[in-house]
């Protein structure tokens, strides 16, 4: 998209006729210096829009600096002032572990399902149905997280307990399912399932978009060579959409890392680092820990929580940045190809 620049040959001759020009431009000098005819209105308007853009720069710089300055007391405080023993890093470790574990669980569960949904909508469902389903997944992506949290805590968690008991009986030799199973079902695995349900619509929507962009010629060529539908998908749709799927998955991961309220409502966090997914002692996550502790926090607790927020910010930043890089490389590749 190339927006016309003000210098593209129209400005010099037409300036006097303009209705909105404030100061009459210097007519004799106009042909040599077309940009000199910038009007007051133009200057105000471009100034306004530029400053709005700069305000965004300042805001983001503000987010970073406020988080850093407000969390500085933690770095200078001695280890025994911080809850637990061993200072900030040992306070952070279980939080970071829980955050990453829940998000990775969500991603592992959601990625294949999102690909399946997207393929179903884009290549299997009847055309009319697929538009309706696409609209429906968009709607589901907009449902607030507190609703997912209520559903996870009150419907999913009690419902999952028998399944967890079954997992412990049959797969109890694995460290993930070693038990003992909690009676409430509010484990890190439940949190991961709720997160996966939450990121499923957005990931499916991204995958669907990518799959639909596969050039029709590629697909038709594959079918014309006698490929079955699955062979056509494997040979044209999947290679074409791979980087889009990866980018979508990383965006979903970023969402899952930062999700607060749903995890807070679902997870009963009390433990430290543990790979037991269905037990009673589950690690907390950074955002849910902030939301749980912040309202009653005093003194050094506040900088401590803000410091964990800074860690979360950095983590999601890196993940999102990597996702953009993957998607951008794909865009470049497309540009080169077509």
């Amino acid at each position, binding site marked *: 998209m190339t927006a016309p620049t003000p210098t593209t040959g129209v400005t010099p001759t037409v300036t006097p006729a303009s209705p909105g020009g404030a100061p009459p431009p210097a007519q004799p000098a106009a042909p040599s210096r077309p940009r000199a005819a910038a*009007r007051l209105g133009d200057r105000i308007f471009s100034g306004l829009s530029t400053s*709005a853009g700069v*305000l965004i720069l300042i805001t983001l710089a503000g987010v970073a600096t406020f988080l850093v300055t*407000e969390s500085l007391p933690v770095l200078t405080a001695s280890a025994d002032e911080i809850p637990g023993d061993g200072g900030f890093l040992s306070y952070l470790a279980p939080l970071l572990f829980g955050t990453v574990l829940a998000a990775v669980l969500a991603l592992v569960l959601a990625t294949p399902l999102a690909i399946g949904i997207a393929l179903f909508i884009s290549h299997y469902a009847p055309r009319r149905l697929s538009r309706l389903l696409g609209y429906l997944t968009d709607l589901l992506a907009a449902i607030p997280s507190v609703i997912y949290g209520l*559903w996870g805590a009150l*419907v999913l968690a009690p419902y999952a307990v028998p399944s967890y008991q079954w997992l412990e009986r049959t797969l109890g030799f694995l460290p993930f399912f070693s038990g003992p199973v909690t009676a409430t079902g509010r484990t890190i695995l439940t949190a991961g399932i709720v997160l996966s*349900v939450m990121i499923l619509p957005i990931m499916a929507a991204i995958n669907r978009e990518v799959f639909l962009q596969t050039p029709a010629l590629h697909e038709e060529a594959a079918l014309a060579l006698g490929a079955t539908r699955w062979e056509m998908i494997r040979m044209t749709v999947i290679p074409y959409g791979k980087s889009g799927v990866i980018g979508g998955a990383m965006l979903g991961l970023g969402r899952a890392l930062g999700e607060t*309220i749903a995890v807070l*409502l679902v997870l009963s966090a009390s433990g430290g680092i543990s790979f037991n997914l269905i037990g009673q002692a589950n690690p907390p996550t950074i955002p849910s820990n902030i939301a749980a502790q912040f309202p009653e926090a005093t003194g050094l607790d506040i900088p401590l929580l803000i410091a964990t927020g800074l860690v*979360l910010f950095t983590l999601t930043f890196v993940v999102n940045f990597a996702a953009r890089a993957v998607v951008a490389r794909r865009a470049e590749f497309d540009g080169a190809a077509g």
Partner: protein
Amino acid sequence: MSTSTADQSAPAGLSQARTPLPTWLPWALAAGAVVLALVLRTVLGSGPVLTAVLAALIFGVLVNVVSRRAEGSRRATDRTVTAVVSAMFVAAMVPLVSLLQTVLSRGVGRFDGEFFSSSMRNVIGEGGGALHAIAGTVIITGLAALISVPIGVLTAIYLVEYGRGRLARSITFLVDVMTGIPSIVAGLFAYALFVVFFGPGVRFGIGGAVALSVLMVPVVVRSVEEMLKLVPAELREASYALGVPKWRTILKVVLPAAAAGIATGITLAVARVIGETAPLLLVVGTTTSLNLNPFEGRMATLPVFAFFSYRVPGANPEPSLDRAWTAALVLMILVLGLNLVARIIAKRFAPKGGR
């Protein structure tokens, strides 16, 4: 597509294709798989989830075996994948349908006049409503929109119409970064910002509006930018050719042409932040009575109200839980309604293609 006849004429050495399966056969196999799974359920005593998984597995194996014998391995793989993809879709829909159904069935219980006409002031146990929370949500979301729409639209105009060079590139990049800010971090930012001016422990509505704006601005910028880029360059050039200055061209030609898309984008951005809980929990807190002044004291909002009704239900939890579900239902109606409005705007007011 699956009944194409391409394989029938192929030489036997290339594929072992024989007659394709009749269309009713897979359905019959599916019915058989379900019956078998139900029989297994009574024998093994497996739960509904396991039964469904078993049914899908049995169906996949059956289809594969039958199709392999009748049509050859390539067709068999194709049919199996179709079964797997469809099963994945159904499996993914189960929790989402369960969610909608639960919110609807548990939410209608308190979906009454009292819920919309009274606050929780002096209410213990049954009764009470969420008028204060609804008012708070409307005020805070409205303020957030008031802050972020001008900033977002102007930034998008800058990026599309003016932006060149390093500044524009870095703004584009940072808007991308902002899209990924976790909502709790936005809340921490707003808190840290207002603590500088008002001291620790500050809680008021405008802080929540600022936090929501941090989340809303990038969404507005992105969608408005897309819409402005769709405006054909010919429109701008025609306007310049008539001697209209650039700022008037943007105001009178470009923005009206993109108005429907911009309105849609803003509506969707509002729908996105209206359900945010975490930043409001930190910066606004909650209260039991109606507070209409966003510059003074705590305010209740629907998501936070739903959160606390579940988290701190009091001695008699049932009425509080009912209120939480009804708040969730109201919130969902708001969000879905806004999405619907956005669709209608996009459809009704979109510029017509022909002339």
